[in-house]
Structures are given as C-alpha cells and as structure tokens.
C-alpha cells in the first residue's frame, strides 16, 4: 500500500517533537540544522524509526543535510525511498 504524505508527515513531526521536548513550534519547514536540533542521536533515531516503521533501508549516502534539514525533507526522503518498494 502506498504511503500517504499526510500520514507520514504527521508521524515524522510527532517523532521529532518527542525528541525535542524543549522546542515549541516545530513544523514541516522548521530548519533542524539552523535551530541546532539535529545531532547524531536524533538523526540516528530518525533513521532507525524510518527503517522500522516503513521498512526502508537507508545508507550512509542518505545522511546529508539535503534529506534531514527539515521534517518536510525527511518526509520527502521516506516517500522517495518507499516508492520503488511499494
């Protein structure tokens, strides 16, 4: 079954917010890098969550700012990687 963007977005936002409890106002376009929210712990947690929840395999080549800058770009990554396997 194809993943729905709205559903993935809600789940990613909820997950990232749970890991950044002291940051209010997290949104789809929040720049995780500029806000200093994205460290290695969060990033690996997000990758782990994506792999477990959506059955996607991510490699070291995916660990770039282009994919993890905002919750929105993380959603884009999930959908782009899920599409060939759907």
């Amino acid at each position, binding site marked *: 079954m194809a993943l729905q963007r709205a559903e993935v977005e809600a789940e990613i936002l909820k997950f990232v917010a749970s890991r*950044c409890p*002291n940051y209010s106002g997290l949104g789809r376009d929040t720049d995780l*890098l*500029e806000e*200093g*929210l*994205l*460290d*290695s*712990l*969060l*990033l*690996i*947690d997000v*990758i*782990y969550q994506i*792999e477990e929840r959506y059955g996607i395999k*991510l*490699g*070291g080549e995916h*660990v*770039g*700012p*282009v994919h*993890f800058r905002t919750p929105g770009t993380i959603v884009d990554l999930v959908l782009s990687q899920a599409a060939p396997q759907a």
Partner: protein
Amino acid sequence: MKWPLLSPARRNADIPLYNRYYLHAPKASHADPVIVMGTEVEADALLAFLQDKNRAGGTLLTTAHTLIRATALALVRYPEMNSRVVGRRIYRFGEIAVRMGFFHRKANEIDLLLIASADKKSLEKIAAEVWQRLVEAARGSGARDRDLARMRKVPAFLFRQGLRFYGLLDRHFHLPAVSRLDELRRGGVMVNDLSHSGAPPMRMYKPSRFADGSDSLNLTLGPVETKLVMRDGKPVEVRVMPLFLRADHRLADAYQIGRFLAAVREGLQEPGRLEMSDPAAMSSSPLPSGERSRTK
C-alpha cells in the same frame, strides 16, 4: 604485541624522570598517572563553519567530525602524544587512528568506532565513515555488532576470568588478532562528543580508562554555552564549548599535554585549518630516525 606500534620502544634514558616514576611505580603504591586538563573553545567560528558546510549539501558534518580531524592534526604536530604503554615500555603508534564513542542505537549502549589514518582524510570522508558505522549499528547488521552480541551472552564469571586470562597473555606475548574487536586498538586516542542537546553545561569530565589501558588520551567536547566576555573594553556574547583532555603522565608532562590540548583547540577555533590538504606540512616533530613499524 598486535597493535601497529613502532619499534624499538622509547629508550629508558630518554624518558623524563617523573614519567619514569609513574612508569615503574609498583602497583601496590597506587600511583595515579592520570592528568586531566580542561579549556574552553570559542565556538562561533566552528558553528558558522559547520552551518556553511551543511548549507552546501553533501555529507552532514557535526562537531564530532571536526573533533576527530582536529585531534588527528594535533597528533601530526605532536607525534610523541600518539603513544601507549605496554608493560613498562612506551611505544609510538605507526599511524594516526582516532577512536570515538557513540550511542549504539540497537543495543542501547555506548560503543566505539575507529577512524584509521584520520590525518589523511577530509572532514567529509571522516563524516561519511562515522555515519556509515552509526547507521550500521542502528540496524545491528555489522560484523562487529554480531561479535558484540556474542560477547554479551558470556556469563559474568566466564567474562571476568576470560578478561583476566586474556589480559595476562596480552601483557606478555605477541598475540594474534583474534577478532574484529581488536581493530579498535589501532589508535591510542579516543574522542567523545557530548555536545548533544540535553547535555548539561560541563565544568569537569574525567572519562574512565579502558581495562586494557589502551586509551592514552581521551578528549571530550561538551555542549555549547553562551558567555559574556570583554572585547575591546566592551562586553560581547560568545558561544563556548568546554574541551577536556585526560592524559597519561607516564607518556607526557603537563606542558606537553597542555600544548597538545591547545593544538586541538586551535583546530576547532579556526576550522579552516581542518581543511588543509597537506597536514604533514603542519608537523613540527617528525618521527625519530631508526623507528620502524613493528607489525610490518
């Protein structure tokens, strides 16, 4: 001795007297050769550098990667710090390899990774290797992860006796490398990046030593804090990060430890230095003639 150490060992006559006191102290004396030194890194330039790099895309760079690179370049400048004690002798390592602690997501515990020849690798290359290992660990899919899983299953009694027996052999014989876990012994320097969100402001951090004594130096970078400092007679806000070094007094004196820490600090404060393509040019103390790799 399976570590990539250079032979011969440092001549006893060349070791300063106070280092020798610690090196030859009987175990019953409980002499403590640990020196801990802390400083602050002005982090504005480093954070701006990382922000610029990450805006440009490519591999995601963090302070951990810059710490590995800055440490490697400081070791190029001060190669005598890239040593370890075996028995009561001091040997230099044949290459600059840096270990880093990281959170093993799958096992929910701390594990180590090693970046070999870190002085010869770009920041991007170092970052790519670190991320690859972290992703692998999150899945628990690497060969090392399987080795660690086997070790966890060993009952406590056998684990303790095994460690004692292995330690005894390790100190006295040239053992073959028996597993992938031995690979981490290629470097005597370990770094920790504890600057992650949620970490408290740090004033002191003394990491423990490994049971095998293989980590001669341990550098820890703490979280960013904002401080007021005076610049040109005016108070200015700057971001700082604490940097701690735990070192072995058997290998070096406080002045050597201090200048090594200063070199790492310089690298972090002036991150443009970390991009230099020829780190060997920074070397001010080449290897002494006559030393060769013992493992080759």
